[in-house]
């Protein structure tokens, strides 16, 4: 029985292990957010497992769609990172955001050379940041879809894992309660110190 339990534990442990180093993954950060109704929340699209700074592979372009529950969240906008080029500089990148009721689709294509991208990008960074507004009480999952990530030469980068996120809207008192608990903890720590 104990052997079976150990085996099961091992299997479960393997399942929850993070992706192997070097395997490219895409995730939404933070994985969980708690906000009050009417508040805004920023969600980052982060990539990791690329080549170290100065070496391939680098990201030359990407398209990522983030699905959400439109009854709970409203899409406010998106901003792009600067490691495919400066988004405000027409000579460096092309960006596009296409939002529907339940899907925010982002695309960015770098106009920089492969060597410039290799020099610019570390092994992991934030591709873009999306901003949502909480519309009603409840938990909305944010799911990644239509993911296409290109290397510097226009070839697909294999994404080993995709991780979404969840945004929970709670009543304001609860939010205050959380804040109060936090303050209490801080105060106790100060008292002990």
């Amino acid at each position: 029985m104990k052997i079976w339990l150990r085996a099961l534990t091992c299997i479960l442990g393997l399942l929850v292990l993070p992706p192997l180093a070097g395997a490219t993954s895409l995730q939404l950060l933070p994985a969980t957010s708690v906000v009050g109704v009417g508040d805004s929340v920023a969600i980052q699209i982060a990539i990791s497992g690329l080549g170290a700074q100065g070496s391939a592979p680098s990201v030359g372009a990407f398209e990522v769609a983030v699905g959400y529950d439109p009854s709970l969240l409203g899409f406010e906008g998106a901003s792009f990172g600067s490691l495919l080029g400066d988004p405000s500089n027409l000579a460096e990148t092309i960006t596009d955001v296409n939002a529907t009721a339940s899907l925010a689709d982002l695309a960015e294509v770098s106009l920089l050379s492969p060597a410039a991208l290799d020099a610019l990008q570390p092994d992991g960074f934030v591709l873009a940041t999306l901003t949502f507004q909480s519309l009603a009480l409840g938990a909305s999952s944010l799911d990644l879809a239509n993911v296409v990530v290109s290397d510097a030469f226009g070839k697909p980068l294999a994404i080993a894992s995709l991780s979404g996120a969840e945004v929970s809207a709670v009543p304001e008192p609860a939010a205050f309660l959380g804040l109060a608990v936090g303050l209490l903890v801080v105060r106790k720590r100060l008292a002990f110190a």
Partner: protein
Amino acid sequence: MNMLRSLARRPPRWPCACAVAVALAAAAASAAVSESEPNGRGAPNPVPAPIAPFLTSFGQGVAVVTGTLAAGDTDFYAVELSAGQLLMVGIFDDRGGELTDTRVGVFFEPQTQDDSSVPPVASNDDGGPGFLSRLAVPIDQSGLWKIGVTGFRDTSFTGAHLEALDGPVSYRLVIAVGTSPPARVESSNNDSLANADLLPAGGALVRGSLAPGDVDFYALDVADGDDLTVSLFDLDSNAFAGAGGERNDTRIAWFDANGAPVADGANDDGGPGFLSNLETHVPAGKGGRWRLAVSGFRDTGFTGNHLDGPFDYELAVTAASGAAPVPRCDVNSDGFVDRADIQAITLARGQPATGPSDPRDADGDGTISVLDARQCTLQCGNANCAPPAPHCGLVGIELLLPLAPWLARRARARCGRSIGWEER
């Protein structure tokens, strides 16, 4: 014509600059130049014409000169190069070099100098396919360099040879200029037909690296009737110079749009040394996206079954004549790939391609995606996909023309007032 001449005589204002820009753009688009006799040692044909830095006019690093060698004839071409570059030249003909024995020489001397007692900086007899010539020369001085083509006996480049006695022989002279660091390099995962690196239409010079077990694939959109040349030069591991192919034994082959090997489309030791080079014609009905494989000589199946390498190489690929290939990436059909084309592809992401000739579908997978957009950024005519130089024509000042009568009236009134004051 007269208007063009008068424009050319004017000081260097915008119309003149535009004319030059258009001429250069046209030269860059075709990358093919025709010989113009007489072009002896003292009167070489400039490539491009008018003379300009080679890489400014031929941004992809390659140009093809079509010429004819007659009995007692020597052909000279002038190119403007910079110190630190690597000049690679190769001659091809329609018979694999079996019936014509050429010599090619490279000279650094003033354009009009014609002194047969001055030897070339470097020359080659049979480095290319058959008896044809090929060589790589490190450029140690900036300025005008000459490339001479003659018969193999003519070591002094005066026309003392016996080639073409049965009639003129046509040839193609491929000129490639490499830089360090290189302008174009192979990607890290171009090891299958599906992952071939797409080269710009017309061809390009690309730096690659071959290791044991490695196969490099490149893709080129070709049209029926195109004449393709491939020249592979291995590089010295200690300096930016050709290694002569004495230690590295390569094999190259073309695969057609269906992935099938092309008849007479492979080569092992075309030269120099054990290196490969190849000239291929695209048969009628066979145009499309061809793939070129580079591997070690043992690897006849191009699966990576070889022990050659590691070494770096420069691969010069050209495609000339024939019908126009599918104009990939030039979405707005203005003859130039720039930011506007990349943006159009980005905005069309997710849409199905309209067909195999859809210029937005650079990778030919049937769907428009950011992969196509990114691939097309590597086909742009300018760095960062900047648009071409302004076209000749209206520049904006003409928008003020409707104001001309008002300005004239105002000037007359001002003039009248000043005269009135003088009268008082």
